[in-house]
């Protein structure tokens, strides 16, 4: 403690206290501006230079000191994004349903005899192109076996193969067990649209059993003929992608791309009632 009692330290302390008291008083009374301005002339240029360095360090400092804050903010933003995504998803579903209903209305205007039931697909086979799927409505909603199914763009999807009170099983036109009486819209040449394993994997089907001189071309639209009374006449099945000749059966056949986008379906429309086609 000897040092603190030394004359030098006491004098220095008195000077320091004196300086502090005088300058605090000056500052409080507003008289210190000239002194400060003088000092600012000396310090500000150096401060400006070091401020450049400081600003460069600013980002790194923020990274360390504001990490928790940023992390929390990030989580909150992620939450907000999820909420908004949910809303977007919901709006998209509503829009799709609206679109489907609007198209259904157009179909209904064209075919006044049709009665529809909009059904969600609740289960499906694994794979990119479903051929068999389960619907969320059944006999309680008027859905029964052998009723045709169409998509929102009126393209034929397939038919109901089995139905319970609250569910129904359906198979699409690309399924190997499917067969639909069809004709070429342009030439009226008839045939049967059937599923094929390899084509089914690509989401395609084929129209076969056509006469060897049948008039069919790439791009032709294939429609349901109504023969067999399962499907109403005139539903769009798809368009011809390739025409081939079967040497063994001596018949023409063509590969057809379904008009309905079968792989991306979430809901379908079941035609529960329609006027049966009677062949002349």
């Amino acid at each position, binding site marked *: 403690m000897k040092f603190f009692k030394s004359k*030098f*330290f006491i004098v220095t*302390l008195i000077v320091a206290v004196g300086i*502090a008291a005088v300058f605090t008083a000056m500052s409080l009374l507003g008289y210190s501006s000239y002194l400060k301005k003088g000092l600012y002339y000396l*310090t500000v240029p150096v401060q*400006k230079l*070091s*401020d450049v360095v400081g600003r460069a360090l600013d980002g790194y400092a923020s990274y360390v000191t504001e990490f928790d804050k940023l992390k929390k903010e990030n989580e909150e933003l992620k939450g907000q994004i999820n909420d908004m995504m949910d809303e977007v998803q919901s709006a998209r579903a509503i829009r799709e349903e609206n679109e489907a209903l609007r198209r259904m209305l157009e179909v209904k205007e064209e075919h006044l005899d049709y009665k529809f039931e909009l059904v969600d697909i609740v289960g499906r086979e694994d794979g990119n192109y479903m051929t068999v799927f389960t619907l969320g409505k059944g006999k309680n909603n008027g859905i029964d076996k052998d009723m045709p199914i169409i998509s929102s763009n009126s393209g034929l999807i397939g038919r109901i193969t089995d139905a319970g009170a609250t569910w129904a099983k359906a198979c699409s036109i690309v399924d190997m067990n499917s067969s639909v009486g069809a004709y070429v819209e342009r030439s009226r040449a008839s045939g049967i649209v059937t599923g094929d394993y390899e084509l089914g994997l690509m989401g395609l089907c084929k129209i076969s059993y056509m006469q060897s001189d049948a008039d069919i071309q790439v791009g032709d639209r294939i429609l349901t003929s109504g023969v067999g009374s399962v499907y109403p006449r005139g539903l769009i099945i798809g368009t011809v992608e390739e025409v081939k000749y079967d040497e063994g059966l001596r018949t023409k056949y063509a590969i057809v791309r379904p008009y309905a986008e079968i792989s991306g379906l979430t809901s379908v429309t079941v035609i529960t009632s329609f006027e049966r086609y009677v062949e002349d």
Partner: protein
Amino acid sequence: MQRPGFSTVLRIFLTSVYVMAAVIMQCSVFPHLRFFGMIPEFTLCVIVCVSCFEDEKVSCIIAVCAGFLLDTAGGGTFTLSPVLFLLAAGLSILLSKHVFARTFLPAVLSGTAALTVGAAKTALILVISGAPLAPVLLKTALPQFIYGMILLLPVYLLSALHYRIFRNSFESRRGVI
């Protein structure tokens, strides 16, 4: 009275530059390197560490000047730093040259004491200005103290290096490192 040699003058000059640089850094660089929103008492750390090595009288004069310069450059109303810095330098001199050997321990002890007083000074000014005590202590004084303690070791090492270069410039036994 012995006349100081060139190396002594150079040492004191460079020490002054070192402390001056600390003051400028505290006013310009450290506002960008905040810890929980706090600027550290960097100059106080430098004064404490310099006082562990420097001549007693030189330390005291530099401490008072640095305190005055800091308060003036900082633009605050209260000019308390000259007194605080002088007391910190005195404590550092006492511990390093009269009680303990020249190790990091005196710097830690005097640094802790000085930073505590520094944080208390900040808290006092804020409380006088009308801020509530508890948040001031928790959100201002404590981070400021911690930040200062973190800086103490690198500042001590830098000061030790500075005085190792000038170890032959001390005429008295107090200057020997």
